[in-house]
C-alpha cells in the first residue's frame, strides 16, 4: 500500500513537472488570470469542458489561444451569432461537380481547443449540436461518423451583462460543462502590467512546452491519484447538503434551494479535485483540493428558489455556505 502511494507520488512529481513551465510560458502573454489558467489546465487534464463567464476584455480568448500554442495543438475560435447553423459548426456534405460525388467538409469543431465565443448568442439548435458533440466526442456528417480529436476541449464564453437577443443555455445543458468559471477583473498591479506590456511592440511568441500526447498521458496519471474514502465521503456530504440541507444542519438553506447538485457534480468534483492535486504535485487528494474547485463545479448545478432570488441570494452564496459549513474530514 505504502509502496504504491510512494510510486504514485513519484510519478505525479515527474509527470506534473511541466505545469510550472507551461504557466510561466503563458505568463509571457497573459498577465495574471492564474485562476482561469489553472482551471483550464484542470479541464484539459480531465477532459472536462469549461464555461467562462465574464465581461468582454478579460483576456478569455487570449488565454485559450496562448494555452493552445503552449500545448502545440489546434485552436479554433467560433463566434456564435443568431444566424449560425449547426452545419457551420460541425461541417457538411458538398457536391463535387468534377467527380459527381459528395465530399465531406469538416467544420471548425474538428480541432483540439474550441473557443465557443458568446455561446448564448446562437439559437438552441446550434447550442445543442455543440453540446452533443462535447458529450459524444464524435460528429456525424451525412452517413459517416467522425471521432473528434483528442484532446478535445471546449471553452465556451457567456457575457453576463447583456441578456437582450440571447438564448440562455438550459440548466440541463449547462450541467454538461464540468466547470463554470466566473472571471473577474485583474488587480491594479496586473492592470498596470497589462498596460505596459500590450501598449507597445509585438505580442511575445509562445513556445510549445508540451504536446497533446503528453497531455493524454498526464490524464491517465491524474486518474491514478489516490483519493481516500474520507475525501470521497466529504464530496458526498457536500453534494448531499445541496439536496437535503436540513440533514446537514443547514436549515436556513432548505427553502433557498430548488434543485441540488446532480451525480454528475460528484463525478466532476472527484475528477477536478484529482487534477487540482496534480497541479500541486501531490499524489493524493486533500480537502483543500475539493474546496478549491467546489465552487466552479457546483455553481451552475444548483437552482435557487424564488425566495432566494427575492433575498438576492445566488447559487454561489448557497455553495459558499455549504462549503463553509460541512466539516472537513
Amino acid at each position, binding site marked *: *500500500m505504502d509502496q504504491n502511494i510512494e510510486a504514485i507520488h513519484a510519478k505525479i512529481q515527474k509527470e506534473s513537472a511541466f505545469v510550472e513551465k507551461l504557466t510561466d510560458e503563458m505568463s509571457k502573454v497573459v498577465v495574471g488570470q492564474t485562476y482561469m489558467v489553472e482551471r483550464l489546465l484542470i479541464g484539459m487534464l480531465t477532459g472536462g469542458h469549461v464555461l467562462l463567464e465574464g465581461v468582454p476584455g478579460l483576456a478569455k480568448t487570449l488565454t485559450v489561444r496562448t494555452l493552445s500554442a503552449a500545448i502545440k495543438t489546434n485552436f479554433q475560435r467560433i463566434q456564435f451569432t443568431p444566424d449560425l447553423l449547426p452545419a457551420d459548426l460541425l461541417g457538411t456534405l458538398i457536391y463535387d461537380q468534377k467527380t459527381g460525388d459528395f465530399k465531406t467538409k469538416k467544420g471548425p469543431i474538428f480541432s483540439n481547443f474550441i473557443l465557443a465565443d458568446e455561446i448564448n448568442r446562437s439559437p438552441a439548435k446550434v447550442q445543442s449540436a455543440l453540446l452533443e458533440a462535447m458529450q459524444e466526442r464524435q460528429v456525424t456528417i451525412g452517413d459517416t461518423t467522425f471521432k473528434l480529436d483528442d484532446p478535445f476541449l471546449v471553452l465556451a464564453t457567456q457575457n453576463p451583462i447583456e441578456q437582450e437577443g440571447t438564448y440562455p443555455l438550459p440548466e440541463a445543458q449547462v450541467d454538461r460543462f464540468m466547470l463554470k468559471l466566473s472571471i473577474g477583473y485583474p488587480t491594479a498591479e496586473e492592470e498596470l502590467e497589462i498596460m505596459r506590456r500590450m501598449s507597445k511592440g509585438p505580442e511575445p511568441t509562445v513556445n510549445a512546452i508540451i504536446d497533446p500526447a503528453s497531455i493524454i498521458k498526464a490524464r491517465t496519471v491524474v486518474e491514478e491519484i*489516490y483519493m481516500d474514502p474520507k*475525501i470521497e465521503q466529504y464530496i458526498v456530504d457536500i453534494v448531499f447538503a445541496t439536496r437535503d440541507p436540513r440533514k446537514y444542519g443547514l436549515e436556513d438553506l432548505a427553502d433557498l434551494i430548488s434543485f441540488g447538485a446532480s451525480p454528475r457534480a460528484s463525478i466532476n468534483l472527484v475528477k477536478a479535485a484529482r487534477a487540482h492535486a496534480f497541479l500541486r504535485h501531490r499524489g493524493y487528494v486533500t480537502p483543500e483540493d475539493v*474546496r478549491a474547485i467546489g465552487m466552479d463545479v457546483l455553481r451552475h448545478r444548483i437552482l435557487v428558489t424564488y425566495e432566494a432570488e427575492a433575498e438576492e441570494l445566488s447559487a454561489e452564496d448557497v455553495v459558499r455556505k455549504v462549503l463553509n459549513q460541512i466539516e472537513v474530514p
Partner: protein
Amino acid sequence: MKKTFLLFTFCLVLPLFSQYTDSSNVKLNISMDAKVEPASVPLNRTMTLIISVAWTGDLGVIEIGDVEMPELANFIIVGSGSSNRIEAGATGQRSVKEIRYVLEPQTLGMAYIEPVIFTYIDKVANEERQLMSQRFSVEILSPVAEPGQMTLPWPVIIFAVLLFAAAFLFFMRNRRANNITDQDIDTPIEELFLEKLKTEVDLKSDGREAYTGLAKLFRGYVADKYDLPARETPTENLIELLKDTDLDAAQHEKFCRLLSSADKVKFSGQSADISELTDAYTSFEILLERRLADNLAEISKPSEKKNRFSKGK
C-alpha cells in the same frame, strides 16, 4: 305563523266594526314607536322587537291595513303577537296597538332589522296613510352560560391542564440543562480537552487513527478556544487563521506541522511516523497543561474570581 297573524288581524278588525262610532270631528294625532329589547343579545338568547302605534280617540278611528313582516338580516322570527288597549289620560282617550316579534340571532356579529311599514286608513280624513319605523342594528354577542352549565367545556379544561403540565416539564428540563451548561462553563476548556486527549487518542493504536483523532481534537480546541471555524476549514486556510491567535511562533510551527502531517497520513494512505505523532501529541498536551495551570493560577486570585474560564480569548 301567517295563520296566527291573520287571525290576530281578523280579531282586531271585527271589534272595530262593532264598536265603530262617528268620530269625524276628532283629531287623529297618530304616532309610531319601535324599539328592541335588549340593545345587544347573546347568541343563545332571543330579543323582542316592539312596534307600538298610538292615536287619539277610540280604536275604531283608524282601519289598520297590512303590517309588513320585518325584513331581517342575521335574525329569524320565532314568535309574534299583538295587543290593543285604550288609555285614558288628561288629554282624553288614547288607543294603542302594540305588535311584538320575538327574534332569534343566527351567528355572531351584527344583525339588522330593516324599517317596518305600518299602513292604516284614517277614517276621519278617509285616506290611506303609512308609518315607518327606523332601522335597527343589533350586536350579537358570544353565547352566555345556561343555568347549571359550566362556563368552560371539559376538553378546554383538560387541554389547559396538559398545556400547563408540558410547560412545567419544559421549564424544569431547561433549568436542568442550564445547570449542566453552567457546570461545563465552569470547567476550563483545557481540562475538557486534556481529558478527551487521554481518552480519545490512543498512541498505541493504528497511527492513522491516532493522527485523525489528534487533528480532530486540535481543530475542536481551536474552534472552541478562539471561536474560529476550524472544524470546517481545510488545513491551508486554518494555518493562516492560526497566525491571528495568541500562539507563539514555535507553537504555531509545531501545530502547523501537526495539521500538515495529519493530512498527509489521513489522505495519502501512508502510514504514520510514530515519533512525529508522539511529538505532536506531547506538544498539544503541554500546551493544554500550561494553559490550564495559568487558568488555575488566575482563578485563585480572589479579586478576579469570576468568568475566568469562559470560552474565547
